[in-house]
């Protein structure tokens, strides 16, 4: 009847559940990226200011998110903070928040790097026509930095999508968590289910991330010319 075992993917509403899980994964990643990129832009700008304490604090913020593994961050936000601070957020929101802060940290470094590599004369001629620091960032430095930082940003996005696979650990119903449930529920009837379910999940991640990574490669090559 079903020699391949693919029927596990289509039994009941399994397939649409998996798609739903994929959607959860995607919207969490997108929202976290959106918030994180905006916040990271501001933090990156602030890291080019002269004010030492501000720079130090932002540097520590970045290092914290770099050094602490994302799993630990998620656990921290989901299990520990609510108990200490009495804030109870749904797992999806905790996930968005944690990922957004992580993205902001990483992106602040990308933005800072791009900003300081904009030639010094661009900054000075902007100041010389009376632009405020904010106008200088807005109309001259950020647009120029953007082209420089695009490949690194896309790389960051692919990392975020991949890292969403950790979300099951804080019981978000993402594509992996749902896949796991399907495997367990159909373990009797489809002993090979695990192979097919993870095969499909692999395919899902691939079609989301591969175009991004291709784009990053292309832009990187373009920047080098």
């Amino acid at each position: 009847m079903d020699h391949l075992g693919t029927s596990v993917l289509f039994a009941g509403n399994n397939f649409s559940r998996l798609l739903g899980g994929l959607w959860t994964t995607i919207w969490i990643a997108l929202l976290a990226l959106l918030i994180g990129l905006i916040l990271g832009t501001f933090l990156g700008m602030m890291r080019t200011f002269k004010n030492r304490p501000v720079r130090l604090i932002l540097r520590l913020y970045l290092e914290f998110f770099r050094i602490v593994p994302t799993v630990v961050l998620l656990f921290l936000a989901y299990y520990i903070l609510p108990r200490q601070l009495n804030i109870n957020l749904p797992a999806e929101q905790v996930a968005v928040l944690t990922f957004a802060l992580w993205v902001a940290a990483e992106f602040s470094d990308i933005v800072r790097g791009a900003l300081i590599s904009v030639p010094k004369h661009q900054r000075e001629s902007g100041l010389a026509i009376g632009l405020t620091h904010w106008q200088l960032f807005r109309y001259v430095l950020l647009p120029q930095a953007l082209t420089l930082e695009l490949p690194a940003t896309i790389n960051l996005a692919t990392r975020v999508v991949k890292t969403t696979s950790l979300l099951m650990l804080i019981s978000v119903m993402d594509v992996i968590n749902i896949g796991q449930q399907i495997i367990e529920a159909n373990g009797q009837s489809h002993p090979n289910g695990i192979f097919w379910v993870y095969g499909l999940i692999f395919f899902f991640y691939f079609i989301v991330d591969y175009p991004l990574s291709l784009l990053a490669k292309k832009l990187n090559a373009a920047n080098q010319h």
Partner: protein
Amino acid sequence: MAKEILRVEKLNKFYAKQQILYDVDFSIAQGEVLALLGPSGSGKSTLIRCLNGLEEFSTGDLFFDGQKMVPTEKNWQQIRQKIGMVFQSYDLFSNLTVLENIVLGPIKVQKKSRSQAVQIATRLLKRVGLADYLQTYPRQLSGGQKQRIAIVRALALHPEVMLFDEVTASLDPEMVRGVLEIIKELSEKDNMTMIIVTHEMNFAEQIADRVLFLEDGHILENTPSKQFFVNSQTERAREFLESMKF
């Protein structure tokens, strides 16, 4: 006597512990053209950058239109609209077209309407012979064209004083003339007040009313131009002029 626009009193400048400018004193009147001359490394760039706040000075006072300048970021931002500056490097904003380079200041800083700003830009570009380049990006222009547009960008704010820091020093020789002619015309037609740092001695002699001769951060001469080029007061200035000839 024409009205005094800018006065510098006892200006001292240090980089870390090293002193770069020593008790610099001078003033410039409306319509006057001052050539700031001196050997490389004498502090010319540092001095004119202090005049629009791109460099902080350590001690001393600056008076603009008779008012003492309180060097806060906000005041500098105001003053910079009245003191235009053009640099040696071609420094148009590379992400913007020629037109956007020019209207950015009038629109964002001076809150002029876009149509008004475009009108100013078009008129000035015509004047420097580049009216066809409104939608061009800087990378498509020659050095001389970029430098003329950089001058237009500064003029679009209707400054009272213009500062030029070796604006022809990185141009190909055949481009130099066009840029110098624009500066000369600014003085002759618009009676623009200007401080010019240049290595073109013939040009300085033609255009300047007065010469400030700077060496090792000291003003050694503040002399009418006619006298400076014919009969400088100091031995050092005579040596300098000699060294600038072939």
